[in-house]
């Protein structure tokens, strides 16, 4: 094929990626959008150009055997990961795939650099950038994966941590700067290896102090980092499809990260350097709650309240995902629907461990997505709601975010569960949420607690609603 046709096809690849991402942002077209993007990837792979024409049109060599084996091994790993993962563990899987991409980006750039392909400072600079960002995305994603798996969830901090991390980053940047202009120096490879190792270490050091609750933001940020690393690789090896794809991911990922931070009302710097949850700021709010007690109720009472309500809003949280009770929620929703109760779901943007986590979970149980309402849409209607059922959510319904200026979550937008006439909170115990603070909602006069495992409680509720 002539190079003009190849260039035109590369434009088609870029267009397919853009259309794919666009379609991914609407529920109706999302699934096809993913296939469109995958189609773009396949086309790009088929027309991939090496130094001397199409990569698949050259004489077979041992390297091509390695490529074929590598692709198949990766395919198997990817397929096993993608199809065996539980819906609750989806965020971890994305983190892991992201880390692999970052690692690949760093390796590609390193090989180009060590092979002496860095002829001009710009090429060398792109390679440094891809190596630095790719390797910190690799190690950072693995730490994020482990944190979501429940290993060392708590932020790990020590005095002067930010200063030490800053110093490491300065050394890395210094090495990158020197390497950019001295790529052919005798010590370049040694300096490069030092830089690579420090960047891997920096990824760990950057994510360790961040609490498990903030991992979604971190994964989103690392996702956009990997995109930028891939774009830099595209510059280094002169592949425009990689430049376009990497840049699209880099910029859309950055925007997504900012949207997520906005939903928590925290600047991104606070997430990354704030070591949230270690400040102990929640202690002060305890005094207002002294002398107040929580009121509990049993499943049969709760079932009565729900059955005779006109409007019910369910607020799901991470507890629902942990209990794997999404199918029971659907049953409850169906049973209430039969009795003429209007049931809606209020989805907080950061409920669960990832934005949209609850939507995916509820979709798995075949709950139609037009019942799912976003926070902004449902809050103005909350005072007309008869019963608000909170299942395993905590910080996202804590009125302290509105009322208590001393609370660390003050200012975070919340679902106004307390505005409804009656609140039922399903919870295992009185333990605090991820932010580690008391929930004022539990002590309100119109709140009743239904203690127990979400799955067991929901089963009891469904049985009682059926019977009533």
């Amino acid at each position, binding site marked *: 094929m002539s190079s003009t046709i190849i260039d035109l096809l590369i434009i088609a690849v*870029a267009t397919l990626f853009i259309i*794919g*991402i666009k379609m*991914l942002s609407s*529920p109706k077209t*999302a*699934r096809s959008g*993913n296939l469109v993007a995958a189609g773009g*990837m396949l086309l790009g792979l088929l027309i991939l150009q*090496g*130094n001397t024409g199409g990569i698949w049109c*050259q004489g077979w060599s041992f*390297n091509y055997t*390695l490529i074929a*084996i*590598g692709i198949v091994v*990766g395919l198997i790993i*990817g*397929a096993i*990961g993608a199809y065996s*993962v539980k819906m609750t563990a*989806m*965020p971890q899987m*994305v983190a892991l*795939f992201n880390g*692999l*991409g970052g*690692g*690949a980006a760093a390796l*590609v750039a*390193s*090989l*180009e650099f*060590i*092979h002496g392909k860095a002829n001009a400072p710009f090429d060398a600079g792109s390679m440094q950038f891809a190596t630095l960002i790719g390797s910190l995305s690799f190690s950072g994603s693995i730490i994020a994966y482990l944190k979501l798996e429940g290993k060392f969830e708590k932020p790990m901090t020590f005095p002067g941590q930010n200063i030490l991390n800053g110093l490491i980053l300065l050394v890395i940047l210094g090495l990158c700067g020197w390497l950019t202009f001295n790529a052919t120096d005798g010590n370049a490879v040694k300096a490069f290896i030092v830089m690579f190792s420090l960047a891997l270490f920096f990824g760990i050091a950057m994510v360790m102090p961040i609490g498990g609750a903030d991992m979604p933001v971190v994964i989103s940020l690392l996702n956009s980092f990997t995109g930028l690393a*891939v*774009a830099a*690789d595209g*510059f280094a*090896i002169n*592949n425009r499809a990689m430049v376009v794809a990497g*840049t*699209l*991911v*880099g*910029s*859309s990922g950055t*925007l*997504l990260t900012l*949207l997520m931070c906005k*939903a928590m009302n925290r600047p991104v710097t606070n997430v990354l350097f704030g070591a949230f949850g270690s400040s102990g700021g929640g202690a002060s709010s305890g005094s207002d709650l002294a002398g107040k007690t929580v009121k509990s109720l049993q499943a049969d009472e709760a079932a009565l309240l729900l059955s005779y309500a006109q409007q019910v809003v369910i607020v799901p949280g991470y507890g629902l995902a942990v209990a794997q009770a999404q199918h029971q929620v659907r049953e409850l929703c169906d049973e209430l629907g039969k009795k003429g109760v209007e049931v809606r779901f209020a989805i907080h*943007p950061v409920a669960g461990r*990832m934005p*949209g986590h609850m*939507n*995916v979970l509820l*979709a*798995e149980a075949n709950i*139609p*997505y037009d019942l799912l309402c976003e926070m902004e849409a449902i809050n103005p209607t909350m005072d007309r709601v008869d019963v608000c059922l909170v299942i395993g959510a905590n910080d996202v319904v804590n009125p302290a975010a509105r009322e208590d200026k001393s609370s660390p979550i003050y200012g975070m937008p919340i679902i106004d569960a307390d505005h409804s006439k009656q609140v039922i909170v399903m919870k295992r115990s009185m333990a605090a949420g991820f932010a580690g603070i008391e929930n004022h909602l539990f002590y309100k006069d119109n709140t009743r607690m239904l203690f127990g495992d979400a799955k067991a409680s929901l089963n009891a509720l469904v049985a009682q609603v059926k019977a009533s």
Partner: protein
Amino acid sequence: METATLISTLFIFVLAVFVGFEVISKVPSMLHTPLMSGTNAIHGIILFGGILVLADADTKLAQALGFVAVVFGSANVFGGFMVTDRMLQMFKKKK
């Protein structure tokens, strides 16, 4: 890279930055996870880079590292698209 090629690639880069911002600016939060996962798959295009460096590899070390890059990239791209599809097949409209 030649200066002319470099400049036109930089053009593409700058435009792609803005397209990336524009294209997802109105996404509902329920699609944030699938979107993150879908874009995660798209940066799996690093597989291309892995293939290109492995095709040119001339030492044992370069072959080993290139092979790892291809495996990582391949897992990223295939796993990424498959896991996104699995998430999205559950978004069904009420019958």
